[in-house]
C-alpha cells in the first residue's frame, strides 16, 4: 500500500534555503482571464523549433495544432484560445539575451471555442500504450518542471527498461509553488497521469516524491492514491534540501543509484516526470485537451499580491503582474524561474510559455545586487555543497586559466549549474557564470574540431580523387599509345598527319 513514509537516502552536498512559498499559496489557484492577444513562440521546448501550420488570417480553435514537431526531439504547439492568426513573426520572448524569436500571434475572438479532434480516451488501461504515447505527443506535452523536454521523447524508452516511474514533486527552488498548489488541488489528476505513464512504459512501480515542507500536498496525494486503490504507487516524503528537484539528485536520494555520466535514467531503470506533466498527460488522455495552459507562480517582494495562476500560454508577463496587483516600489529584478537557476529578464513584455513555472518579481532586499567579487580563498565550501561532488574551486581556477583539458579532467561537463557553490562562496564569485562560459568555450572548441576534422577529411578525399583521376588518365593514355603501336602506327606521326589533314581542309571550314 501507499504507506508514504519510506526512508529516503541523501545526495552529497546541497544547501538549505528559505522556502518563501507561503506568500503565493495563501489562496487557491486562480484562473487568469484569456487575453485579447496571445503570442505563442514556436520554440518553447528543448529540441528543434516547431514548424508553423497556419498562416496570417486563418481562423483557429482553442487546442488546435498550429505548429508541428519538426524533428525527433521537438514538440507541437497549439492555439491557446480561438481567434484569428494575425501574425507569424519575430516577437520578444523570455530568454536571458532578450532576443526575439518566431511566434504565432492570435487575436482572440472572445468565444474560446474548443477544437474537438482529440477524442477523450475513456479507459486508458484498455488502450494500447502506443495510442496513449501518440496522444501525449500530439497534445504537445513537455516537461513542466522548467526544462520543457518533450515528454513523448522521454517516454520513448526501450521495452521493459523502466522499473520505476518517479514523479518529481520536490519543487526545491525557493519561491516556486506551482507544483505544490497543483498537488494540493489536483492530486487525482496527477495520480491518474502517473498511472497512464506507467501504462505507456509498462512498469508496475511508481513513486511520487514530495519535500517534507509540503504537508498539504503530501496528504492530498495520499488521499488520492488511497481513493483510487492504487497499490503500485508509493508516496515518499523527502527532506527539503536544494537542489533535490534535480533529476539526478532525486534519483540518487530515492534509489541510492547514480545515473551514469554519459547515460540516461533508463540505464538504471528509472524514468522521471514532473507532477504537473502527469496532470497534463491526464488532461490529454481523459479530456482530449492539448497543452495550452499551465500553473504559474507569480511571487516575490516586488509584486503586490503573490499568487498561483492558471495561465493560457501566450499571456504576457506584464498582464499577470497586473492581475497580481502590479509591482511594488521595491521591485528590482524580474526573474523567470527561481532565484537559484532562473534567469533575469530585461522586459516583462514577453509571453508565458510551457517552461514558465515562476515569475519572480524580486525586491532589492531579496537578491544580491552588490557583486563585490574577491579572490577565491579556497575555503572549500563550494565543494562541500556541490551535489555532483565536483571541486568548484579547482574548476574556477582552470576556467580562469582557460585550461580546457583540466576542466574536462575535473568533470566540468557534469556541473548541473544549480548555483549552490556561488550561494555559499564568501568571496562572492559568480562561479556558475564562469562554468557556463567555460562549457560553451569547450563546446565551441569541440564544434571547431569537428569542422576541422570534416574539412581535413574532405581535403583527403579530394586528394585521393585527384590521384585516382590522374592515375586513370595516365593509364588511358598509355593504353591508347600501346594500342596504336600494336596496330603498327606511330602515335606522333598519326597526330602530325591529322594536323596536316586539317590544314588542308581549312579553306572549306572557314
Amino acid at each position, binding site marked *: 500500500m501507499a504507506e508514504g513514509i519510506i526512508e529516503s537516502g541523501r545526495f*552529497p552536498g546541497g544547501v538549505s534555503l528559505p522556502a518563501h512559498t507561503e506568500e503565493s499559496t495563501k489562496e487557491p489557484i486562480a484562473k487568469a482571464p484569456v487575453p485579447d492577444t496571445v503570442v505563442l513562440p514556436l520554440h518553447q521546448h528543448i529540441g528543434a523549433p516547431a514548424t508553423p501550420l497556419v498562416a496570417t488570417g486563418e481562423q483557429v480553435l482553442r487546442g488546435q495544432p498550429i505548429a508541428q514537431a519538426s524533428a525527433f526531439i521537438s514538440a507541437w504547439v497549439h492555439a491557446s484560445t480561438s481567434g484569428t492568426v494575425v501574425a507569424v513573426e519575430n516577437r520578444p520572448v523570455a530568454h*536571458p539575451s532578450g532576443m526575439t524569436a518566431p511566434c504565432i500571434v492570435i487575436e482572440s475572438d472572445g468565444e474560446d471555442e474548443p477544437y474537438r479532434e482529440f477524442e477523450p480516451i475513456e479507459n486508458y488501461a484498455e488502450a494500447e500504450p502506443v495510442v496513449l504515447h501518440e496522444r501525449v505527443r500530439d497534445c504537445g506535452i513537455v516537461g513542466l518542471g522548467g526544462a520543457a523536454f518533450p515528454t513523448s521523447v522521454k517516454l520513448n524508452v526501450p521495452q521493459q527498461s523502466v522499473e520505476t516511474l518517479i514523479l518529481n514533486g520536490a519543487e526545491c527552488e*525557493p519561491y516556486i509553488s506551482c507544483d505544490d498548489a497543483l498537488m494540493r488541488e489536483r492530486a487525482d489528476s496527477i495520480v491518474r497521469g502517473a498511472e497512464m505513464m506507467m501504462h505507456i512504459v509498462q512498469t508496475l512501480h511508481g513513486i511520487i516524491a514530495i519535500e517534507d515542507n509540503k504537508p498539504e500536498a503530501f496528504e492530498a496525494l495520499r488521499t488520492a492514491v488511497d481513493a483510487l486503490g492504487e497499490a503500485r504507487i508509493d508516496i515518499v516524503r523527502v527532506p527539503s534540501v536544494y537542489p533535490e528537484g534535480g533529476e*539526478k539528485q532525486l534519483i*540518487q536520494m530515492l534509489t541510492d543509484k*547514480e*545515473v*551514469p*555520466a554519459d*547515460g540516461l535514467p533508463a540505464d538504471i531503470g528509472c524514468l522521471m516526470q514532473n507532477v504537473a506533466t502527469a496532470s497534463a498527460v491526464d488532461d490529454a488522455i481523459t479530456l482530449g485537451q492539448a497543452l495550452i495552459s499551465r500553473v504559474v507562480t507569480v511571487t516575490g517582494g516586488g509584486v503586490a499580491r503573490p499568487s498561483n495562476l492558471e495561465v493560457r500560454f501566450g499571456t504576457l508577463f506584464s498582464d499577470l503582474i497586473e492581475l497580481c496587483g502590479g*509591482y511594488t516600489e521595491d521591485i*528590482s*529584478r*524580474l*526573474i523567470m524561474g527561481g*532565484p*537559484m*537557476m*532562473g*534567469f*533575469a*529578464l*530585461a*522586459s*516583462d513584455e514577453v509571453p508565458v510559455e510551457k517552461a514558465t513555472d515562476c515569475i*519572480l518579481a524580486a525586491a532589492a532586499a*531579496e*537578491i*544580491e545586487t552588490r557583486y*563585490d567579487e*574577491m*579572490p577565491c*580563498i*579556497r*575555503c*572549500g*565550501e563550494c*565543494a*562541500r555543497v556541490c*551535489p*555532483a*561532488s*565536483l*571541486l568548484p*574551486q*579547482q574548476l574556477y581556477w582552470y576556467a580562469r586559466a582557460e585550461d580546457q583539458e583540466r576542466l574536462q579532467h*575535473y*568533470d566540468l561537463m*557534469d556541473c548541473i*549549474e544549480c*548555483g549552490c557553490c*556561488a*550561494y*555559499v*562562496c*564568501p*568571496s*562572492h564569485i559568480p562561479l*556558475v*557564470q564562469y562554468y557556463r562560459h567555460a562549457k560553451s568555450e569547450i563546446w565551441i572548441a569541440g564544434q571547431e574540431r569537428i569542422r576541422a576534422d570534416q574539412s581535413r577529411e574532405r581535403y583527403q578525399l579530394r586528394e585521393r580523387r585527384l590521384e585516382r583521376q590522374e592515375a586513370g588518365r595516365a593509364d588511358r593514355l598509355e593504353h591508347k599509345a600501346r594500342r596504336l603501336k600494336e596496330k603498327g602506327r606511330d602515335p606522333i606521326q598519326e597526330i602530325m598527319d591529322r594536323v596536316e589533314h586539317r590544314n588542308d581542309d581549312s579553306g572549306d571550314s572557314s
Partner: protein
Amino acid sequence: MRFETAPAPHLKPIDSVAGVMRDVLLALVPAAFASVYFFGWGLLINVVIASAVAFGCEAAILSLRGKPLRPFLNDYSAIVTAVLLVFALPPVTPWWITATGSFFAIVFAKHLYGGLGYNTFNPAMAGYAVLLIAWPAELSQWLPPRGLGLDLAELNIPQTLTVVFTGQLPQELSWDFVSAATPLDTVKTGLAEMKMMSEIESDPVFGRLGGVGWGWVNAGFLAGGIYLLARGVIRWHIPVAMLTALFAIASVFYMADSSSHATPTLHLFGGATLIGAFFIATDPVSAATSVKGRLVYAAGIGLLVYAIRSWSSYPDGVAFAVLLMNMAVPLIDHFTKPRTYGHAQP
C-alpha cells in the same frame, strides 16, 4: 517595464571573506584573555605592533600592485595573519622582531605569491619561521606564568612597553631571572640530560594539562575552535585528522617507552598544537582542497609535529610541519580528486 539583468543565482550569498576573518578574530579572544592573565600585557602590545605593520604593508603593496585598497583592507585578512603570528611569539619579544615577522608575512609570504587567496604558504607561519631561524635566542625568552615564581604578569603596561621597545627590564629584574622555559622546552632539555619523564614532569611548570597557564591558553584555542566549527567557518576534517594523528603516534611511542616520551596529552595540550589544529592548519588558502585531501594534509601535519618535537633540535614543530605540508598540497590535491556523480572511481 524594463529591468536590469544579472546572472543566476540571484539569492544573496550567505557569507563574506570579511565575515569569515572577523569570526576567526573573535574566536581568538578567549585565548587572548588567558594569555594576558597568565603572561601579562605583552600579547596585546604585540598585536598592536604586528597589526599596524601588517595593515601598512598591505596598503603599500596593494597600491604598488595597483589593486583596489578598500575591499582588501576591509577583509581583516592581514590582521588575522598578524594576530596569529603574535600568538606564536613570546609576550616580551622586542618590537622590531615582531614588526619584521609581520612585514615578512605580508610582503613576502602573502603578496609576492599573489596576495589573498594565492599564497602557497601560511603567511603567519612563514613569518614565524623566519624569526625563529634569525633570532632563536629572542624567540625562546618566554615568561613564567602567573603563579609560578616571579611574575612578569605583574608588570604593568608602561613597564611592559619599556621591555618591548627598549629591552630594558625594571631595575630589580634580569633576563636570566625572568625568562622561563615552556613545558615543551623543559621536556626537550630534560630528555637531552637523560632524565626520566617522571623527573621532568615534576617540574612545577607542568600543570594538569599542558602546563600551568599554557593549559588555559590552549583551552582558549579549543573554545575558539569549537566556535569556528559551530559557525561553519572551519570544518572538522583538519583539526580532527591532525589531532588524531598526533595523538596516535604519541601514544605508540609513549606505550613503547613511557620513561623517555612525553605523554600524548602533553602533545595535544602543550605547545602550539591546538592553535595549529584550529587556526593555522585550517587556513583554507594554503591547505589541501578536497575532504580526502584535507584529511591527508592534516594527518601529515600531526605526524610531522611529533617528529619535529621528538627528533629535531626544536622543542615545537607546528610551524615547520604546516609549512612542509603546504608544499605537499599540490601533490595531495592531484591524488585526492573526489569521484564525480555518475562516474566510476578515478
